[in-house]
């Protein structure tokens, strides 16, 4: 497979620091706008978890010229779709609309970037606190195994680590947020100098440049952006945690500290995840589901951010199966992998699959826009599509084995969610 991406894009920076990336593609029936603010839960402090995410909700509560509910209403009336998302390291807002509505999107995004605060009040804040508490209930507290991830994070990292707490935060913290804190957060982080905007799809670049200057050029903001909390690389040792919950089947979660995104071992860890659990013939799926038939499912992931990463293996036991046997088999298979090595066909299949998955994921305009922004944020260059693929193409069995020994060792968290007694 010799496919190479060739995106004809341009990048420039406005006088106020806003980075602009334009990718015109007249074949697309729409235009997608993605704004990335370089702030996430990694910027929060103890006792204020969930602030970045709550703030994302407030960005949809109206701004000086946009009434509450207006952002959604205008985009939906234009036939578009929209949302936002908050991670550890960044917060992004995205909308895809028919081409004629590009100006509408730029107007809306600029209004909340420049003039959010005049429209914020206590009632909106309290309403969105209630909504976020419900979001937390729906997605975590009331969901089977829903709090496993935050338990793992809390045990992988000490409390000063930027990835110690879940992005959504804890309810007791969320309830305490004040309008003054919201205003300070906006002034600190929602500055054009701390953001980048991607416009991708069917539009005229010349007109887009003018519109972006017209709507964003006059926005001012601080250029002294506070950085993320820095990692304190705690050395962990093996720890078993057992939690009883309202579930029927035991589930085991094994978590190691690993490499940061685009770090030298990040791609190797992706490939290791793939050959452990992605397909029927992957090491753990074959053993647990087909040979021993003791597991309902098994999955793994390299989860990496700006400063740090974690590697997870998760498996649900069938009824009547002791989760210890899942644990022992997973560890046994990792030992076998270290002892016998990785077969060349395992490596080539995994790389092939990751590459094709990369191509398939870029069918959607919003995914292209998002990827431009992420490359720009993490690597300082929006056009790193081919570099990203080459990270996998250049891997060798030797480098994978080094990564395996380096990270998937006996220092891990062993979380078991068990049915209530």
């Amino acid at each position: 497979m010799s496919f190479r991406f060739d995106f004809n894009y341009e990048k420039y920076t406005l006088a106020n620091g806003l980075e602009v990336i334009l990718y015109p593609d007249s074949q697309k029936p729409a235009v997608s706008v993605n704004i990335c603010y370089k702030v996430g839960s990694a910027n929060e402090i103890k006792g204020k978890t969930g602030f970045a995410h709550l703030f994302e909700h407030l960005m949809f509560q109206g701004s000086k010229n946009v009434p509450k509910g207006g952002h959604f209403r205008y985009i939906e009336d234009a036939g578009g779709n929209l949302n936002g998302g908050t991670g550890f390291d960044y917060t992004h807002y995205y909308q895809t609309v028919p081409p004629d509505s590009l100006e509408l999107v730029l107007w809306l995004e600029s209004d909340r970037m420049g003039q959010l605060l005049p429209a914020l009040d206590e009632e909106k804040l309290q309403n969105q606190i209630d909504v976020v508490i419900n979001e937390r209930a729906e997605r975590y507290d009331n969901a089977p195994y829903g709090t496993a991830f935050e338990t793992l994070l809390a045990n992988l990292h000490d409390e000063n680590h930027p990835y110690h707490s879940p992005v959504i935060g804890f309810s007791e913290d969320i309830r305490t947020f004040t309008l003054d804190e919201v205003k300070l957060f906006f002034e600190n982080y929602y500055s054009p100098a701390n953001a980048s905007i991607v416009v991708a799809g069917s539009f005229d670049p010349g007109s887009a440049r003018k519109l972006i200057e017209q709507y964003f050029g006059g926005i001012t903001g601080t250029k002294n952006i506070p950085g993320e909390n820095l990692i304190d690389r705690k050395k962990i040792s093996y720890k078993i945690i057992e939690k009883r919950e309202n579930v029927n089947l035991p589930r085991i979660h094994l978590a190691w500290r690993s490499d940061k995104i685009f770090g030298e071992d990040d791609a190797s860890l992706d490939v290791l995840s793939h050959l452990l659990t992605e397909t029927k013939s992957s090491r753990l799926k074959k053993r647990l589901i087909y040979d021993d038939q003791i597991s309902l499912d098994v999955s793994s992931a390299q989860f990496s951010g700006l400063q740090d990463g974690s590697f997870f293996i998760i498996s649900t036991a069938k009824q009547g199966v002791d989760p210890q046997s899942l644990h022992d088999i997973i560890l046994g298979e990792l030992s076998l992998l270290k002892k016998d090595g990785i077969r060349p066909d395992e490596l080539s299949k995994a790389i092939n699959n990751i590459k094709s998955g990369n191509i398939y994921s870029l069918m959607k305009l919003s995914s292209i826009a998002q990827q431009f922004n992420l490359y720009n944020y993490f690597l300082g260059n929006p056009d790193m599509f081919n570099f990203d693929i080459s990270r996998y193409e250049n891997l060798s069995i030797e480098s994978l084995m080094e990564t395996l020994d380096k990270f998937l060792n006996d220092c891990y968290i062993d979380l078991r969610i068990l049915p209530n007694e």
Partner: protein
Amino acid sequence: MNRIIDKIPASVFHSTNLPVMNRLDLGEGLTLIHHEVNSLPIVNLNFIIPLPLISGEKSGTANITSNLLNEGAGKLNAFEIDDLLESMGTTLSVHASADNFYLSILTLTENLEKSISLARDILMTPHLNESDFLRERERIRNRVVRMSDDASYLAETLFQKIVFNNSVYESPVTGFLNDLNKLTIDDVRDFYQNRIKNVAVSVVSVGNIKLTELAKLIQHFLPDRRISAPSFQKTDQFKIDNTTIYFIKRKDSKQSEIILGQPTGGRKEKRLAEKIILNSILGGPFSSRLNQNLREKHGYTYGISSGFNFNKHLSAWQLSTGVDSENTYNALKQILFEIERLEKGISDNEFQSALDHTLMSIPLQFETQTQITNKYSNLISNGLAHDYFENFMRILHELSIEQVNEYASEFITKKGFVIVVVGERIEPVEKIAAEMGYNLKDVKIEDVISGNITF
């Protein structure tokens, strides 16, 4: 800052050109519908076989059969199939709904021929081994048990059982445990022989290959298929309990999961456009009345939406939400308030917003190859005309607010709702049941997943 903007930039609707689908009949029982796109070197393909379950068949039969088809076919076992797919970077999935069986492929064009050859083996020469069957059945049974931890799964399963009572749509595709326990490999082999092998198939594809080249490949690997799919069996008795709130007690719930709905007409119904617009205003997009009320005004929920569960023969309208337990009663009251308010009609602004949203969002639904493939597959799956989307857009363009308001009181009938609540606290539900004049019935989780519900 001195930036002043007092005017909202206008959006202008231009007529939409939907992808042109070319249709070819490739012999008896084999139809190809294709759209050529050359922006990426990939092809999407859906093989669709009509598959209405026949009343009396064990639920879950179609699903387990679809799971087993790629557990070994032709000269390859399950691992070799996966290895081949991985080496090509191809994704291939097989699944069943109540109405259809699907084999879907997403492949690099350079591997299209090999991918279709593999699809042929899966469709024509699956192994269907008993050992694979026993393993898969056990996994599915465990999955159902796992899913029973999930409030939304429980609510949806019970809602379908009630609203589609005594029809092929009453069970989840995975099947009820009672049926899964009785399923045998012979059931699967019979099902495959009579319902899949040699049954007429439609192929919908989008990608960078010419129609004629693709037609040759399909004809080569899938020769004439002569058997028509069995027809849907009409249900003798379709009785729905719409005077009871069904309550599933789920311990330690932080939220109550609510589903409320009733049967409705299908996609071929005359007043479909009115229904789509009214639903859009009530609970469609984020800006809908229900979401503005329950989320943005009261903060009872993270989100609420309503929509249509369209099947080929029987359909339902339903809304669903998870609300904090303390506000179960308040949320239900507001839901009923909004339904009643809708009956009184909609404003000009709301009509125009909903119409704009519905019409102008259509191009975005045809953005990617996968979206286009699935959109046209839906036409086939539901037995709809090839110009369905164009006709629907024309009807929307001609729709007036008077037509919509005239229909507002009929859209959701007051004859009653099927209501399911899953949660911890029963007291507020008792209160609203009494106020509505509804009965309240407790249902056990074990009975929901086993299919032991009687009315």
